């Protein structure tokens, strides 16, 4: 059974009389327990598509299903319990946490909204989660401004996981943080994958995509130009654009 599926999804933005088609009739499949990557350059529509999967953006054409059932019911997207199933980690850890809330409260808030425990219990759940993400008890009581980018991004992951989602949608989770923080975050992701979490990873960093994903979708101008298993795409890319992307990765092996 496929966890998440998109059929013929399009998104058109209207502004000042112009129409921009950001996503053009794309199909997408996220199988249970797999990691699927979406790569493409800026402006190709990857983030817009990720927002459609999360339900933050209503598609102008096509539909998305979760376990076979459409996620949209009338006006509501991800109604009731379903909403817990899909969570998102955003690109910029500097703007996705409330600067006036302590880290622990930011995570505990999500726990309280969805599980309805009392305040002390919620804090305990949040603290355990943060510890699992490698954030110490001392750091958990700090404000986001006193944490590094990598720590903030791990706090965002903790917040997303606090409702025990089935799917995590990560939109460029590593592009705003340092290399050492990046490997810490990737290690965390591979642990979560072992625990059975399915992930949609949006990135333009092909190294990250190669490391984590099972399947890859290559996006250009709102369309998927190549799809396949990640090893196949990296070893023998057939599309000209994919070949160009792969040859641009800096690597110290070749000069």
């Amino acid at each position, binding site marked *: 059974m496929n966890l998440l599926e998109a059929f013929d999804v399009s998104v058109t933005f209207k502004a000042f009389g112009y129409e921009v088609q950001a996503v053009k009739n794309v199909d997408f499949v996220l199988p249970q327990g797999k990691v699927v990557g979406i790569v493409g*350059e*800026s402006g190709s529509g990857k983030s817009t598509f990720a927002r459609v999967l999360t339900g933050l953006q209503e598609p102008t054409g096509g539909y998305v299903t979760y376990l076979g059932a459409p996620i949209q019911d009338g006006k509501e997207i991800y109604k009731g319990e379903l909403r817990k199933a899909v969570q998102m980690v955003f690109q910029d850890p500097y703007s996705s946490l409330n600067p006036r809330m302590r880290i622990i409260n930011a995570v505990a808030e999500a726990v309280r909204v969805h599980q309805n425990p009392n305040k002390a219990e919620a804090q305990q759940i949040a603290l355990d989660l943060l510890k699992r993400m490698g954030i110490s008890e001392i750091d958990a009581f700090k404000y986001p401004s006193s944490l*590094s*980018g*990598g*720590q903030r991004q791990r706090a965002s992951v903790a917040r997303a996981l606090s409702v025990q989602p089935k799917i995590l949608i990560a939109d460029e989770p590593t592009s705003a943080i*340092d*290399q*050492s923080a*990046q*490997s*810490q975050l*990737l*290690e965390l992701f*591979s642990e979560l*994958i072992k625990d059975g979490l399915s992930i949609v990873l949006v990135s*333009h*960093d*092909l*190294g*990250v995509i*190669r*490391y*984590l*994903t099972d399947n890859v979708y290559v996006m250009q101008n709102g369309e998927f130009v190549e799809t396949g298993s*990640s*090893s196949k795409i990296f070893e023998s890319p057939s599309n000209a654009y994919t070949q*160009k*992307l792969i*040859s*641009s*990765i*800096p*690597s*110290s092996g*070749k*000069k």
Partner: protein
Amino acid sequence: MSNALVQIDSLCIDVKVTRTRRLTIVNSATFDVHPGQLLGLIGESGSGKTMLCRSLVGTLHRRGAYINSGSLTFNGIDLIKATPKEWRDIRGKEIGYIPQSALAGPNPVMTIGAQMAEAIQLGEKMDKSVVRKRAIELLEIVQIRRPEIVLKQYPYELSGGMKQRVMIACAIAREPKLIVADEPTTGLDVTVQAEIMQLLKQIRKDLNTAIILVSHDLPLINEVCDDIVIMHAGSTVEKIPSANIERTRHPYTEALYKSRIDLVEPRGKLITIKGQPPTVGDWPTGCRFAGRCDYAKPGCSADVEIPSIKIGPNHLTSCIRQAEIWGK
């Protein structure tokens, strides 16, 4: 070495936090740049890379920072004692600067042509047609198609890669001897990044310009540059030719090199550098990497000045235990 273009020796930069409180943000930065050399400067955020660049273009005071000690010479001129008048003859003419953010670099209310004219004239009187001709020539060097049209456009009409090319064109307008490129490709796509790097290499080849390329991307630096200077917590920990990166003599460089994800199998074991870099103003004594280092012994944190140890002709390290770890 006397033929070096830039000599930086135990440079220490402080920043004014309040009226009486000072914070040291760069301390003991030491390296040389030779004419025509492509030097990579790498370090984590907050390691002082940008401040070091600013000291080379004389804009430290705009952030309330100043050089506290050490020496900084460019082409025989002492940049620490340089007056604003002397700076006007150096900045732009001798040292070009490509700022960090390509998207915010150009002035949004000036046409590309007007900004390039500023960079070309630098306050001198020049004939309009000469300036225009030079601007078109520069845009052709940075491979912008239809330069005549681009000159009339505003920055919002250009893509990120094009803006960065315009910033490079401005930096090379007066054929400087040195270009300081502060993370020129952060936020740009990999395909654009590859093109910009190709362009920088071409400029270096054609004009024999020395380039300091700042980045936090080790694979990129290693591929493009001749030599690499690694910074950690405000000090330069190692200078190494990029061909020898595997024979590093500093645990931080080793950890950075090994933590690269293109080396491991998918979902394989990643090598991570534990902990966080020490915060500015809270640096430990002795080696500042000791708290995150796998080889550290109590002696590493002793309150002594860490010396720069010469390994080879172009290889300096500041790990006091390098001989013990890697042998002779």
